[in-house]
């Protein structure tokens, strides 16, 4: 019951739909404490990814993740482009060329993704960024790794959701929202929100 290249591709197509549905919400969140483009940026990137997947789905889960990485890097821009791009790139590297991913592999991929985001963006938990969603997700995923892939992703998604919510009272210390100082408190971080949306989608679509 592992996760194949087709499963990963399906999960990414589902993610593209969810991003499109939540585009305006993410734009609004980013307008409040950023520059109002997060939903648009991700939507442009995931739409481009779907086009690429329509042309050709790589043979391995790692190949699909690598395609996601390069596509997002070359189409999203902004902070989220390189950060999500690096996340997918590290995840791809972490799974190597395995034909199927088991729960351990998925948890390991999430963990690698987080390391990539932190390596690029230098954010810590509490800085009010996507790291606040991804960090608890990785902890929960690791704890659930003895179960199935779906258990891992469900645990990650739930933790990410709580992690995202936890950004509301925070004063931002990274990214554009940090320019607002105290005025950034009281708002949900758009990148944390998108991370939680993506993980929830992967959990829903995972085999």
């Amino acid at each position, binding site marked *: 019951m592992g996760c194949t290249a087709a499963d990963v591709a399906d999960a990414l197509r589902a993610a593209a739909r969810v991003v499109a549905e939540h585009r305006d919400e993410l734009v609004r969140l980013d307008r409040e404490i950023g520059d109002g483009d997060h939903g648009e940026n991700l939507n442009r990137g995931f739409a481009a990814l779907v086009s690429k997947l329509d042309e050709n789905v790589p043979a391995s889960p790692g190949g699909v993740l690598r395609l996601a990485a390069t596509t997002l890097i070359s189409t999203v821009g*902004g902070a989220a482009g390189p950060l999500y791009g690096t996340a997918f790139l590290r995840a791809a590297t972490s799974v190597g060329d395995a034909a199927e991913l088991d729960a351990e592999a998925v948890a390991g991929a999430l963990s690698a993704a987080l390391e990539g985001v932190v390596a690029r963006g230098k954010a810590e938990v509490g800085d009010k960024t996507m790291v606040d969603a991804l960090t608890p997700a990785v902890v929960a995923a690791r704890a659930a790794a003895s179960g199935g892939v779906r258990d891992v992703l469900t645990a990650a998604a739930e933790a990410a959701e709580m992690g995202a919510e936890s950004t509301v009272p925070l004063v931002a210390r990274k990214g554009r929202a940090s320019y607002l100082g105290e005025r950034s408190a009281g708002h949900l971080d758009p990148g944390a929100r998108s991370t939680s949306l993506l993980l929830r989608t992967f959990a829903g679509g995972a085999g």
Partner: protein
Amino acid sequence: MKKIINDPSTVVADALRGLAAAHGDLLDVRHDPAVVLRADAPVPRKVAVISGGGSGHEPLHGGFVGRGMLDAACPGAVFTSPTPDQVQDAVARTDGGAGALLIVKNYTGDVLNFETAAELAAADGVEVRTVVIDDDVAVQDSTYTAGRRGVGGTVLLEKLVGAAAERGVDLDGCEALARRVVGQVRSMGLALTPCTVPHAGEPSFTLGEDEMELGIGIHGEPGRRRVPAGTADEMVRALLEPILEDLPLAEGDRVLLFTNSMGGTPLIELYVAHGIAERLLAERGIRVERRLVGPYVTSLEMQGMSLTLLKLDDELVELWDAPVHTPALRWGV
């Protein structure tokens, strides 16, 4: 939202087509990836000076491509940094064998994307240096933030480094000059009205009839403080004082004063502000030796302004006066 656009998702490409049509003699505008090149790029044995960033700040950066300034500009989506492949392409097309200097405004997105691009370009065999500009004194406590933003000072930096590169200064020299300029240029801005990003469709913030945002950046992001709008005298003081606190200038020091419109402020108001700034600086015995007044680093249709001060010396004056021939800045040719 009322704008002269056909479609928010094509606005950058459509504007680039207009830019190409208007300045075909100066520019070679390419799509996929979007890059604005000097028509005569690559210039052999010259350091390529490259910048880029989100669109919506026009004429920055595309309007500053040309002899004596930028070799290439990489326009991202509106208020969104460009992607690494754009920058990599720009480096490849402007490399004249003397390496490339990337001028990056200090925003997380810009820094990360240019970082990746620099790695890719280096892998292509081009020597690349990156200089990050962070002249916005509105951002304090930089340990608790993404650091100061790059704003108005960017155009001065691009002009000065572009002039040096045009004279044949090598990559080390251009980089050193750029770092020196970054060290002595400071800016601060305010907004009287917000702007509307085409794909967002709603104003970036709302302001009361008598309020202004003090310490705004150039992406329609709210400022640090919301204060009563006041008179032009008060506005200019509110911008100048934090700059002068941060950039210690002694009596007799020479500066370039750049009075910039955020886009929607009419020139008549900008000249009112400029006159006040000159007077306040004269009162402190600071000598304004060069000036730039106009909408050069904008935030779409936002009404507001920024002031930038650059400490001058003979070398910088000479580089500022050197010929430049771009769509938005032109003299000496």
